[in-house]
């Protein structure tokens, strides 16, 4: 059987955190800037703010013939609700990246590879809570080989308002740096 090239990531949190945007930026990074195939799907409900939500991105070297998540290898968790609700969907042995400013983990996390990123705190220190997702994107681009750091950076740039570009890039680079450190620690 052919080597499976399909890769999946799931961004989870509550509405308003930019969970869908994070998925979009990741998908765009893969499709447009890294020239792979990618698909973004999302939960779509009448609720606009506050409830647990997610987006899923599939990245592949070849045409994607099933667009929803089958078995995500990576999950970004940005709220406690999302942790409770979505963690079981993560593939066994998969990578879970939690926003440690907002999420407390318990023993259920033990069967996964855990990274803690205090994205919201970092974002608040930078002056805008809203860019916590961009910190996460920097981190993801460094530790997940499905998208490149460069591709992700370009994708972030294309999606943020020009006047907030610097701030977003700083947030992104901070995430990359934390990813770098996390990897170094493992070596």
């Amino acid at each position, binding site marked *: *059987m052919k080597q499976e090239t399909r890769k999946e990531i799931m961004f989870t949190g509550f509405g308003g955190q930019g969970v869908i945007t994070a998925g*979009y930026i990741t*998908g*765009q990074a893969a*499709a*447009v800037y890294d*020239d792979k*195939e*990618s*698909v*973004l*799907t*999302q939960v*779509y*409900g*009448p609720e606009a703010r506050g409830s647990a939500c997610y987006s899923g991105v599939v990245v592949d070297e070849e045409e*994607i*013939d*099933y*667009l*929803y998540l*089958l078995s995500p290898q990576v999950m970004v968790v940005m709220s406690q609700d999302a942790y409770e609700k979505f963690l079981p969907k993560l593939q066994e042995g998969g990578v879970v990246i939690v926003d440690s400013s907002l999420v407390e983990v318990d023993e259920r996390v033990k069967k996964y590879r855990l990274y803690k990123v205090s994205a919201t705190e970092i974002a608040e220190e930078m002056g805008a809570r809203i860019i916590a997702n961009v910190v996460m994107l920097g981190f993801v681009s460094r530790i997940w080989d499905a998208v490149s750091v460069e591709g992700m950076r370009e994708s972030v740039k294309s999606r943020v308002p020009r006047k907030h570009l610097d701030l977003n890039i700083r947030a992104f680079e901070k995430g990359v740096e934390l990813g770098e450190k996390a990897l170094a620690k493992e070596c």
Partner: protein
Amino acid sequence: MGKTVLTGKHFWYGNIAIAEGAIAAGCRFFAGYPITPASEIAEHISRRFPQIGGIFVQFEDELASMAAILGASWTGVKSMTSTSGPGFSLMQENIGLGAMMEVPTVIVNTQRGGPSTGLPTLTGQGDVMQAKWGSHGQYEIIALSPDSPQEAFDLTIRCFNLAEKYRVPVILLASETIAHSAGKVVVPPEDEIELVYRKKPKVPPEEYLPYRPDEDLVPPMACAGEGYTITTTGLTHNEKGYPDTTAEAQEKLARRLNDKIRKHRKDIVDVKEENMEDAKIAVVSYGQVSRPAKRAVKMAREEGIKAGSIKLITIWPFAEHVIHKWAKQVEYFIVPELNYGQIYLEVKREADGNAQTILIPRMGGTLFTPREIYQEIKKVNKK
């Protein structure tokens, strides 16, 4: 002026791809009413049209929207609306008028679950028969169904081309799945996009009859304000466009309206066949179901099962000749649909006893996983 054709590589939601496909096809009139999960098409067009000089109107309802795109098309401008189930139901009266007056226009139905208000935010394929039979009377229509944002872009352009070629309303049967998932869309350079425009009259106004067809059964179309003094009506009419409510006139007109589509079935029908050469089991799918179906066939092939897939890109007119042909080779057609059997019945009819047809029904809401379809293939294979 903004760019009309956004040549390049994009990561677009299906709804955005549809809107950009329409713009690339030359659509410059859009009328619509907000509805989930189609609203992003109208939203995107309302943002883009002022940049490129198109007319956008959010009407009071879908009845008005559908009427307005017919009116706009009668001036020679390519027009479109987009909606979902409940709005599609309201549009049926003027889809019928469009078929009767022979107006090129495009209607996007981003399908959700039904009946009635149903599942506004979840997917479905319950409007397939409605697309064909939704308005009253005997008429033929064209409908295409995309399985990805790229296909949504490409097929929207083809919808306009077919509408112009055959002077008929054409329906893009999209879905919430496609509307709200994003994927790579490659937009070719403007000069590589083939566009079709309706035939214009070749005779002076005094010799022109608005409903005298050419050999292809399609009459050349003079538009409002061009000096041809056209008259048209939803009533049964003669070649002059005058009401003629007799059985003879009806026989002639209704027959032609149907035949101009039926007799060009092979030109209109587009299917994608894979692994069919030696297939004994064919999965017939369309729209959003085609992708898991394709993967299921791949999984079956890996197990050595002689499975193939037939993806219907054109839904209406139905690919009769395709099913008819393969029915002689395959033993089973498996039809997974997000309804309780609509295209299934068409396949069964065309299989005509030569192959067995098996429905995998689902009422909508979620898409099949590849495994679900694969298991059905396996089950059939054991028979």
